């Protein structure tokens, strides 16, 4: 059983107009396993009668005939009684409204230049207190703090929206306090992105063709999320087929990816997952081969493994499922400059605009906010509307260089309401179909 209290504060300035919104919700959920079937029930917090009714609802959701043909089994579990809290040097909920609005106002003013048709500066803070108990003896208290922010500005062209964002559209998130917002330096970056929007208006369209890419930042985060992370979530349609761990090629042998729920301050970090399994760092891709899934106890048992502690949910309203935690692209050698130097003609993409995976994670189409043309190792200028497509394994097989740790970026995106961390370094992919039209 789980009890959660969520508190949220959103402060925003949109084209000079500030607004703020708060939320506080409390909920209970109960998950029961009876004769091989799950029953799940959730409701707002109440007294003893509410809890009794909740348990009865969960039991009712599981106990009906006929019983399932393939009963659920669970992997082993070590119950623990523990407390865990996100690192939080500066509590974002103690920062005065005037300071928040003042900072957003500075960012807004920096973006208010001629030619910009709209601009947003936004901060989002969340705190989740949870209590978790299960019949195997686990008793856990966790406090997660999430701080996020971003700025974005746009101009309206004849047939398109030209937008630039920092650090990514919708903002970036981290499992820590207000210190993360200070690191983002929204006012310091806001003017730059607004000027880039103006420059984009004059930029040519992205040329069509097969070309080499250097991908970094949130574009890489989204690419990893949907074409590697999702495929590791056992049970997600399109995940790597069961029993293929160890002999399924995801891409180039340079590719090493870890799902690390223990990353300090990661957007997807926690102490224990939604089944009470301790957070872990799990290698999911090693030298290009898929080696381990993100699982809960049911999924792990189905392949004869132990749970990798990846059960998460966006809300107490919904049952948990295996979900990405923090994806860490292990650094290589070299740096961004050396990646560029190895390209005769190519494009650098660093901020995603849209990412469209296909059903069963076969195939994808992605669009960046801007492309930076590379000619003979040098950045030459911007191009508009860079769209690229591919199939995950073929795409990742084209990776022939990954930058080192000095170019590391730490980002966090919202994935269907769940915060997911991405610790990335720029990499180079050869031979991708790119263009303003496909």
């Amino acid at each position: 059983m789980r009890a959660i209290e969520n508190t949220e504060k959103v402060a925003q300035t949109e084209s000079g107009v500030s607004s703020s919104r708060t939320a506080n919700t409390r909920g209970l959920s109960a998950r029961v396993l009876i004769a091989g079937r799950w029953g799940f029930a959730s409701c707002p917090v109440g007294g003893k009668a509410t809890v009794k009714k909740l348990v009865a609802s969960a039991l009712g959701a599981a106990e009906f005939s006929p019983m399932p043909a393939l009963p659920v089994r669970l992997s082993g579990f070590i119950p623990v009684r523990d407390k865990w809290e996100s690192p939080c040097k500066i509590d974002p909920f103690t920062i005065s409204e005037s300071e928040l609005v003042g900072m957003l106002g500075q960012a807004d003013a920096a973006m208010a230049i001629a030619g910009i048709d709209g601009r947003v500066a936004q901060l989002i803070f969340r705190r989740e207190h949870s209590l978790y108990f299960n019949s195997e003896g686990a008793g856990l208290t966790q406090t997660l703090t999430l701080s996020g922010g971003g700025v974005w500005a746009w101009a309206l062209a004849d047939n398109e929206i030209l937008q630039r964002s920092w650090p990514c559209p919708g903002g970036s998130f981290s499992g820590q306090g207000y210190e993360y917002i200070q690191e983002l330096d929204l006012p310091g970056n806001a003017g730059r992105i607004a000027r880039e929007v103006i420059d984009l208006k004059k930029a040519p369209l992205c040329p069509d063709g097969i070309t080499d890419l250097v991908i970094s930042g949130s574009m890489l985060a989204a690419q990893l999320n949907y074409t590697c992370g999702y495929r590791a979530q056992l049970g997600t349609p399109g995940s790597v087929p069961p029993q293929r761990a160890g002999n399924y090629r995801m891409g180039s042998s340079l590719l090493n990816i870890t799902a690390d729920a223990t990353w300090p301050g990661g957007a997807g970090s926690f102490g224990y997952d939604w089944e009470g399994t301790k957070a872990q760092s799990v290698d999911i891709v090693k030298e290009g081969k898929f080696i381990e899934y993100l699982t809960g106890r049911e999924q792990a048992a189905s392949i004869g493994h132990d749970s990798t502690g990846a059960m998460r949910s966006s809300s107490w309203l919904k049952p948990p499922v295996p979900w990405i935690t923090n994806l860490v692209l292990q650094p290589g050698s070299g740096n961004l400059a050396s990646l560029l130097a190895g390209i005769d003609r190519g494009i650098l993409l660093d901020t995603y605009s849209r990412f469209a995976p296909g059903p069963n994670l076969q195939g994808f189409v992605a669009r960046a906010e801007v492309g930076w043309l590379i000619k003979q190792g040098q950045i030459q200028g911007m191009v508009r509307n860079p769209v690229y497509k591919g199939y995950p394994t073929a795409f990742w097989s084209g990776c022939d260089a990954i930058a080192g740790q000095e170019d590391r970026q730490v980002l966090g995106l919202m994935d269907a309401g769940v915060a997911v961390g991405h610790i990335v370094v720029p990499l180079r992919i050869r031979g991708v179909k790119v263009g303003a039209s496909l």
Partner: protein
Amino acid sequence: MTKKDKLLGMLQKVIPEDVNAEISVLSQCSQNTLVLGNSLADGFHGREIIVHVRVEQSGRIGEHIGNRLTVQGIRDALAKARQSAAFGCPGPLVLTGSTGYRDMELAFPATIEQSFTDRARLLEPIIDIANTINVSIKGTLDALSGEFAIANTAGLAAYTSATLARLRISVFGAEGLGQGYGYVCNRNAQALDIMGTFLGAAAKSQASANPRPVSGGEYTLILEPAAVADLMEITAQTVFNGKAFLDGRSPVLKIGRRIFGENITIWDDGLDPKGLAVPFDYQGVPKQRLNLVTRGVVPNIALDNETAATLNMAGTGHASMPGRVGPSPAHIFLEPGNAMLDDMIASTRRGILVSRLRNLVMLDSRSGLLTGVTGNGTLLIENGKLTSALHNLRFVQNLVQIFNRVEMIGDETKLFGGLWGGTRVPALKVHGFSILGSNIGQG
């Protein structure tokens, strides 16, 4: 005391007298029975409450969302909204006045009282047949119920309740190579045609077995109603959304201009019982018919009180739930034509029959550039006949162009939706659809 009296009574106890304010409560219950691999798998029972308070204090608007449905809980939410008003957006808070709205019977006891055992009994016959004919079912049978109440300092006090029963299934042929999609919904659980829905999906799964790839290019597509409903959902959020229009993020640059073909007429009508009617929107504005596209021309955009005030126009009753961005139509009707689906197929020399459009993502909302994948059964049409199954196809296509290239419109409509709104649409035959190719590849 009825539920309505109890809930409205609670709101009116808390409504302040010294400031303008609006308090709404949305309470929803969802029971879902999951079918997986012809087995009755998990059951879910969820109850959600959203208490949404907006208040104007010293010329600024504060907003708070809570979920404690008690007088004290709502009072606490009001206090927090007042606190957040200090740095809220400038007022005024535009409130819906006390106007009449249609009292509608939208909640059916058969849906509310349906148990997990009842749903198991309803699903057993289709599972038995699935086992017999060697197909596999994955999906859910849902029973949803909810109440919405809103009161404000302008004298509004409105309440409605509703239920929805819904079956959503994918049927997979042997070895999972063919797929069919089945969907049916009705506010009354007793009115669901579960067997008919399953049989249609099962037939499609057989027809779409052994898919083969096809090369990219321009094709004529026949979109079945479920695919049109998928398209209409994203169209509602981008094309007709009042906030998107204000921001310049909609393909509608000016109201009154033609953007679609002359054979396209779309309207929103929250009162039409052939849809999933509700009497008022999330700001209590009574529903009425709103023409969105009349023979290709856009005469109106969906507005809430705020966007209407900004545009100096009358509100249209399309305020969205808290958390959604901007007002959108939620009770959409696309005018049927006079073509039977068989005639659409028979009249197509080379084309593709599409059951669903999946994973739709708007690459650029101002131009309407859209990408997605066909799903749940895609069939090749050659010389007027369905000749083979195809793998799912990736496309990148302009939404505005789609609605300018409609050759034929189906004569029958189908209803899709959720507890508080839906879409009723026919099939469409569209030429010049840009297909990138089969959405398959090595992983």
